[in-house]
């Protein structure tokens, strides 16, 4: 069992944060990870910046551009996180586009993930069939969870197929949108969450896209094992940098369900 599977078995209302590696400054990757853990984050999606992030909105596009400008690369990222398991216990998922991983070499990439203690990978533009055909065995042998996305437009049959081939969680995209689009969850979106929940899937879901504050986080948690805050957190980093106190306030402000 990897850290993702263990977390999802043990916890509900999982608070997950996304940020782009090497942003706002090249060496901020580890400090931000550590601050997120200290603030009580359950799981982190660590973004590998790409020149052409076609599923991302302006906030994450900008962070990717800046990170690349700073000199971030997959090679650099693995150097930065090579000793992360000395301090970081949270499950870590690397998220990015397929081309840089393909260029690095998928086998070498998966081996390196295993070596440094990465638990999962999200590559939105690696299609299911291609993964199934060429890479599934490789990921499974290394005990790295490949996380698939589903959207309101994904047909039930395909969701079931994805479920049968997943072993971490399913990333439930809340609406037809790129990252950082409008906040708030409509009745239509809640109906979609219910539809998916009624499919009797074996893989837990975490909701992402449009989760930016306590209200949306709390609502999403009613329909899934947890939720992911991405653009809103990247915005905070843009404004405050890798500042421990503001990261702590941000996470607590969304996650803390004790104050009603």
């Amino acid at each position: 069992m990897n850290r993702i599977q263990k977390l999802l078995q043990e916890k509900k209302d999982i608070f997950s944060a996304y940020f782009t590696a090497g942003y706002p400054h090249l060496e901020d990757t580890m400090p931000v990870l550590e601050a997120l853990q200290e603030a009580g984050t359950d799981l982190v999606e660590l973004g590998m910046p790409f020149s052409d992030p076609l599923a991302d909105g302006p906030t994450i596009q900008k962070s990717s551009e800046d990170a690349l400008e700073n000199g971030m690369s997959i090679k650099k990222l693995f150097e930065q996180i090579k000793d992360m398991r000395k301090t970081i216990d949270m499950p870590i998922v690397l998220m990015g586009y397929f081309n840089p991983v393909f260029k690095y070499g998928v086998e070498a990439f998966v081996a390196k993930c295993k070596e440094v203690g990465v638990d999962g990978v999200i590559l939105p533009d690696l299609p299911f069939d291609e993964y199934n055909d060429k890479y599934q065995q490789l990921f499974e042998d290394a005990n790295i969870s490949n996380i698939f996305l589903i959207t309101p437009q994904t047909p039930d049959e395909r969701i079931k197929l994805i479920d049968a081939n997943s072993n971490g969680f399913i990333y439930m995209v809340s609406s037809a949108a790129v990252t950082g689009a409008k906040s708030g969850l409509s009745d239509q979106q809640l109906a979609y969450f219910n539809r998916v929940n009624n499919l009797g899937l074996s893989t837990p879901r975490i909701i992402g896209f449009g989760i930016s504050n306590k209200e949306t986080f709390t609502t999403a948690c009613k329909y899934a094992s947890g939720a992911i805050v991405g653009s809103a957190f990247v915005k905070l980093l843009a404004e405050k940098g890798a500042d421990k106190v503001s990261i702590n306030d941000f996470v607590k402000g969304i996650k803390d369900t004790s104050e009603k």
Partner: protein
Amino acid sequence: MSDKSKYQVDENGMYGRFGGAFIPEMLQPNIDNLKKVYLDIINSEAFQKEYKSLLKDYVGRPSPLYLAKRLSEKYGTNVYLKREDLNHTGAHKINNTVGQILIAKHMGKERIIAETGAGQHGVATATACALMGLKCVVYMGEVDIKRQAPNVARMKMLGAEVKAAQSGSKTLKDATNEAMRDWICNPEDTFYLIGSVVGPHPYPDMVARLQAIISEEIAWQIKEKTDKEYPDYVIACVGGGSNAAGSFYHFLDDERVKLVAVEASGMGVSSGETAATIAMGDLGVIHGSKTFLMQSDDGQITEPYSISAGLDYPGIGPIHAHLHDTKRATIISATDQEALDSALELTQLEGIIPALESSHALAALGKMKFKPDDAVVITISGRGDKDMETYMNRFGF
């Protein structure tokens, strides 16, 4: 032509080891849907009737196959120019947009989005949308909007909304990213009208089929004009590669016909300022397709350079990567200067001002050896009106 050709797309959307549909799940239902219907629509009698009638009466086809006598004399062979520059809107792009707009209508889509670099595909899309009364949004890099003011004005006059792509290098590849983002956000009513044989399957195949009219005409025109059954050479420029795909299409399985694609090498293949993707690129995934592309060691897509805005795409259509791989086509390259020289040469020998893109194809004449009785077809993909500013600057007129 048989669909079983080894140079054609297979049932998995692959051209050999190239192609496929590397797209985020958000686009999957749209792509699946298009994949399901596009062949039935294209092969239907209703579509063919409407498409062929628009090509004839609106686009002005067939485009002439013209024996360029003085140019032929100079190079000691027989040069036939396929005059796509004489099409309505001035380039081959309209063949594709008229076809895709009919497909969009058959699918009940109400809103058309497109990407454009220099603005030629944007203008051709806006034209087709005006013709059909459909809403049109064209994404164009902020840098290109500034460089191509007349085409921006043409699109607006045609009723299109031109949206600036402000991310990345603010050029064609970023405009393509923006169009894909729009499609992700508007999956129900919107049709993405891609301008070249690039993007996820089925786009490369769909666009190639719609441009195939070029080679369909060459095939009968060459018999009409000569005593030959087929041309010895077909030469076309390649950026994404739609006019080349269309020029080659009906000859793919006739190996007697030599196919030549000319890339833009900008300041020179190894100058670092080039768009010669086959020469300088390596395997990767761009805009949903596995193909050769220009990228850094870290897999970041790099900005190509060419004097011709229509050829500076960092990838190449998967069909051309496959034609190169199988050695079915010869891929050569021409520099900015060679293209400019060829443009001037054609203009002064034949009275035809070609687009800078097409001038790269013409540059092949000086780079290859032809026999006196060869029939050499060169596709003039577009006219040079849009490039007059460059010509004025470079030639000092």
